[in-house]
């Protein structure tokens, strides 16, 4: 098991109620999609934040990645809605 820093932004952050947390990654969680699925089991606030998993964007160590990306070597994983800057 390895320590992973999770970050949430915008309405993902609001729904979960925290902007970041550290977790011990369960052994059966290999990809970003696995992590999303596992987070949804942690309570109704996570369930609500990730209810439409397909709109959630993800980054590993501050680089955009698709959901199927392996977590091996990751230190920080971020979850957020589509960007609306500019």
């Amino acid at each position: 098991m390895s320590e992973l820093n999770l970050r949430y932004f915008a309405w993902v952050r609001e729904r979960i109620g925290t902007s970041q947390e550290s977790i011990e990654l369960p052994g059966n969680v290999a990809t970003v999609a696995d992590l999303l699925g596992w987070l949804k089991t942690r309570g109704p606030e996570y369930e609500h934040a990730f209810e439409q998993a397909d709109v959630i964007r993800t980054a590993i160590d501050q680089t955009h990645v698709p959901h199927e990306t392996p977590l091996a070597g990751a230190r920080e994983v971020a979850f957020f809605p589509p960007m609306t800057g500019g």
Partner: protein
Amino acid sequence: MATVRVQAEPFDAATEVREITRGRPDIGAVVTFTGLCRDEGGTLAALELEHYPGMAEAEIARVAAEAEARWPITGLTAIHRFGKIAPGDDIVLVVAASAHRAAAFEAAEFLMDFLKTRAPFWKKEHRLDGTAGDWVEAKDADDAATVRWRKDG
């Protein structure tokens, strides 16, 4: 090498243009884009811009490096603000300089199109009537705007 800044403070376009053009008499064209906070028909009190510190700078720098690889540009600056921004105030600035106008226009447009869809910023509206603001929804038009830059298109 592009200049990229993510900051709460306002910026000054004229200062950034001067920085890019000073001592560069090979520059024939400078394009600036300034994105401002609209008042949405008088209903908006402010926009609140949340961002992912570190990744915001890194992602804009990646897009800027792509623009520099693609067009013969002599200078490129991108500044994006975060925090609370009132209607009429500036949100984002892009400055692109080149010998000729086509490269400057295209690099500035390219940077804005990809900045909008890739840089980790999110806008929340604060309404004048005090109701809880909504998060601005991403627009399909912004994704569509990036498609035209595909080289294999």
